[in-house]
């Protein structure tokens, strides 16, 4: 069951969110999604790979898996950073179309082009990231052999990230590595920030995205941020109930549609609330919201892959 929810009590360290995630996704090698491999696991280092600006307080990892086919190379990275005097905490996110053993965590900047390093916050401020807090946080992890999704409740807001492959609209030979690292923030934003650049990964403010040609490009995120305008509120499917689960795409005008998000759908329903669980196609879906936003357009559903069991009333 590649789905887990729980609570951690601190940002980093043994009781931190990253430790919880890594322990879970690597902890059951016989189960797809829980069989990720640690390619790199160290104290967080700076952009030169030499200094450990936080000492043992922060950790950086690179995780790999073999994809749904079992023959691919899905490689993603997470890097803890913090500035306690500003009460700002977060993860830098990365992904690697071509991982080389022993390379720096940020050693793929030639591919994605981002090199800015903020020496005050000690993090890569133009990388996709996910703001967190150094306090109790409730999390929801979703993992399979090609991607990891994290949703975290930080006080009253929700943070999220997507790391790994999407479902490519073509053959693996045509699109060898549909990898992406999608955050919900960029820069040095706190988890409580409510600015426009703090939003969910369906329309990420920062990302790394690999094309079929192996280039880091900027896709169109569909649905994007503002392609909604129902004349009246949407209602449930007539006679069936529930909501339409709308696929989410990444496309590039010159290339066409590239991929859909794996296990993530957009839903529009004024009755939804974050953390709702509903059933569709025999599976339970978890509802997450767009950071602090709660309009009916700001909800997505993530497939828990938990099979619904039917009970018969007495």
């Amino acid at each position, binding site marked *: 069951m590649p789905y887990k929810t729980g609570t951690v009590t601190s940002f980093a360290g043994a009781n931190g969110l990253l430790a919880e995630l890594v322990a879970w996704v690597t902890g059951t090698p016989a189960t797809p999604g829980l069989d990720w491999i640690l390619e790199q696991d160290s104290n967080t280092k700076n952009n030169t790979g030499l200094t450990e600006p936080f000492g043992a307080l922060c950790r950086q990892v690179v995780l790999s898996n073999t994809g749904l086919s079992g023959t691919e190379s899905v490689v993603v990275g997470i890097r803890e950073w913090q500035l306690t005097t500003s009460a700002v905490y977060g993860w830098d996110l990365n992904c690697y179309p071509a991982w080389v053993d022993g390379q720096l965590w940020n050693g793929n900047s030639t591919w994605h082009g981002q090199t800015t390093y903020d020496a005050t916050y000690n993090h890569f401020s133009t990388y996709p990231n996910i703001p967190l807090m150094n306090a109790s946080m409730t999390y929801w992890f979703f993992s399979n052999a090609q991607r990891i999704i994290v949703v975290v409740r930080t006080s009253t807001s929700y943070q999220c990230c997507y790391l790994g492959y999407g479902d*490519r*609209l*073509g*053959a693996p030979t*045509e*699109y060898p590595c549909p990898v992406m690292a999608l955050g919900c923030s960029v820069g040095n934003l706190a988890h409580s920030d409510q600015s426009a650049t703090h939003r969910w990964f369906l329309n990420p403010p920062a990302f790394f995205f690999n*094309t*079929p*040609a192996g280039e880091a490009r900027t896709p*169109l995120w*569909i*649905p*994007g941020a503002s*392609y*909604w*305008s*129902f*004349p*009246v*509120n*949407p*209602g*449930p*499917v*007539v*006679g*069936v109930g529930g909501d*339409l689960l*709308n*696929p989410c*795409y990444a*496309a*590039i*005008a*010159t*290339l*066409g*549609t*590239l991929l859909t998000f794996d296990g993530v759908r*957009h839903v*529009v329903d004024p009755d939804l609330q974050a953390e709702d669980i509903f059933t569709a196609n025999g599976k339970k879906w978890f509802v997450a919201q767009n950071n602090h936003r709660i309009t009916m357009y700001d909800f997505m559903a993530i497939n828990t892959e938990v099979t619904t069991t039917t009970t018969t009333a007495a």
Partner: protein
Amino acid sequence: MEICTVNEYNAPADHRAIIANIRTSALAAGWTVEEYRAVDKVWDSGVGWASGAHAQERDLASSYTGYNGSFLQLQGSGFGNQGGANRWRLYGFKTDNFYLLPTNRYYNAVSTPNCGPTNVITYGQPTQSGYSATHQYNPTLQDNLLPMAGLTTCQMDCLYRQSTFPTTACIKQWVVCYGTKLIHSIVNIDNIYFEHTLFGVLDLFDQTYSDTTFFQKTACGSYGWISGEMHYSYYLTNGRGILTPYIYANSTSSIHSGGTVGLANYAGLNCSRIFNFPHQAYTNVLTNDYYDNIILQNTWSGKRVIHVPIVSTQLSGLLCPVGRMWYGVLNTENLTPGQILTYGAEQYQVWPVYSTTYPNTYGVAYRIA
């Protein structure tokens, strides 16, 4: 998408041949032919069925004289008890000025000819006053004259383009059937223009309804499919007929009507509408937004996303999905009409909705395997 059957007919000579081909495919799919007049029969209300030139009520203008008439009335099954309502008439005739081709009339604006007591089209359509006011239940029989107030264009006239309809044969015709639920005739007029005639019931999300509570018909007025005219959806509930908005309503490229006929104008009614994309909402258009990019052919894999339009209806102030079209929409650039696309074990046959060149070659796809 459900697997449909497709029959292909080469070089239909005229409107009569096209109607005959629809009849052939309909029979093969299990439809009942309730009335068929194959050659040179037009309905003159003062005479009845008549050969030669007669005053023809089905014309664009009643003063025209019609001849070379052809008439077909079909009954499908629909879901549950929809069968009695899934009845369609196709009128074809020629005037001195132009050809007309199948005219589906599923409300009783003028519903002659009388095909006998067992073949009466009774959809429970509202009267004019009922429609504009309380849309009361008022089952009507054919021969009643019930013009829709202010909606005289909502007559499901599938007019074949007068200016482009050839004096010789068309290129090809395909008739798509999903059993006795759907018929879609696609005619390649001249390798540039395509004409679509689509009727039946919708693919309901919940097909267990058997009391005619939910009943949908759709039809398309051909050459403006995406960019323009006449694509209607009807939603009937408990026998109360509700005329619903144009779906492709104006001539500028908006899928949804924002004008005089549209959801907003019928907010108090149980109207339905089609979303060509799941996300699509009232102000979205197929062109000029990112959804264009979804249906483009991928340059890296050659694949195209096929989107199934969602049909929603307004219930209790909410816009609720009720079903979907039997076809998907896609961009048919670089495809030939009738080409088959393979997606793994599935196959889809595709046609442009308007022409092979305009605009941006939007098309429809039916699953055939």
